[in-house]
């Protein structure tokens, strides 16, 4: 739930989503749900030449289970806050 809340906070920022099939997509985070399914706007595939079929895709939905990494905006993480929140979660409060 913590990361769901976190992702909800960075809606509207630009992220790069790396998938388990090595496809990497840059785009503006439009929405996220409890499964960490992600919707991106204004998407660009990082390696455009290798994936020509993605050329005309501008908005997309990515299933949470196929995501390997999400590269966050550098100033998008409040490490202190995330630390506190994870500790609180670990204590079960």
């Amino acid at each position: 739930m913590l990361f769901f809340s976190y992702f909800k906070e960075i809606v509207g920022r630009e992220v790069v989503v790396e998938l388990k099939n090595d496809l990497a997509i840059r785009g503006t985070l439009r929405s996220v749900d409890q499964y960490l399914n992600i919707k991106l706007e204004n998407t660009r595939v990082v390696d455009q030449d290798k994936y020509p079929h993605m050329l005309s895709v501008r908005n997309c939905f990515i299933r949470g289970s196929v995501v390997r990494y999400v590269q966050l905006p550098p100033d998008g993480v409040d490490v202190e806050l995330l630390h506190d929140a994870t500790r609180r979660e670990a204590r079960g409060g």
Partner: protein
Amino acid sequence: MMKVLVRVDLPRRSDFHAVPIHGSLFVYECPFLPPYRLSSLFFRSISVLKPESFPEATSHVLEGKILVLLRDGRKLLGTLCSFDQFANAVLEGACERVIVGDLYCDIPLGLYVIRGENVVLIGELDAEKEDLPPHMSRVSVAEIRKAQKAERDASDLKGLIRKRMEFLDMD
């Protein structure tokens, strides 16, 4: 009572035909099994055909063409009829886009029900933008199959050569 023939694409690549009866029960007409009812597992993905269960978030896409990437690397194009939180999707007028090098082909498939676990990504296709880069050319099904086979043979050969050379311990 409407009988519609749908095709259920399973992970193991066996294609079934299903006939919806009473809008809720589905019976497979399958080449290697006697007709039987759809399990509740699949039933969930079919029940979203009811328009009121469309999630609001995707309803604006339901008109346009979409691209679905599957986990096995296949690319399906079609009109999104329905969709749910598991990413189960129903595609109308689906076709598979096979790309080999600079050649491509759209193989028509009809109505497709895709089980969510196989979905990697669902993308909206921009109607104004060109589908594919201009240097790619469209070929017939037979030609693309030939190209696919050539590519597969080439990669098999590469694997074979590599295997034979293993004693050299190139790493």
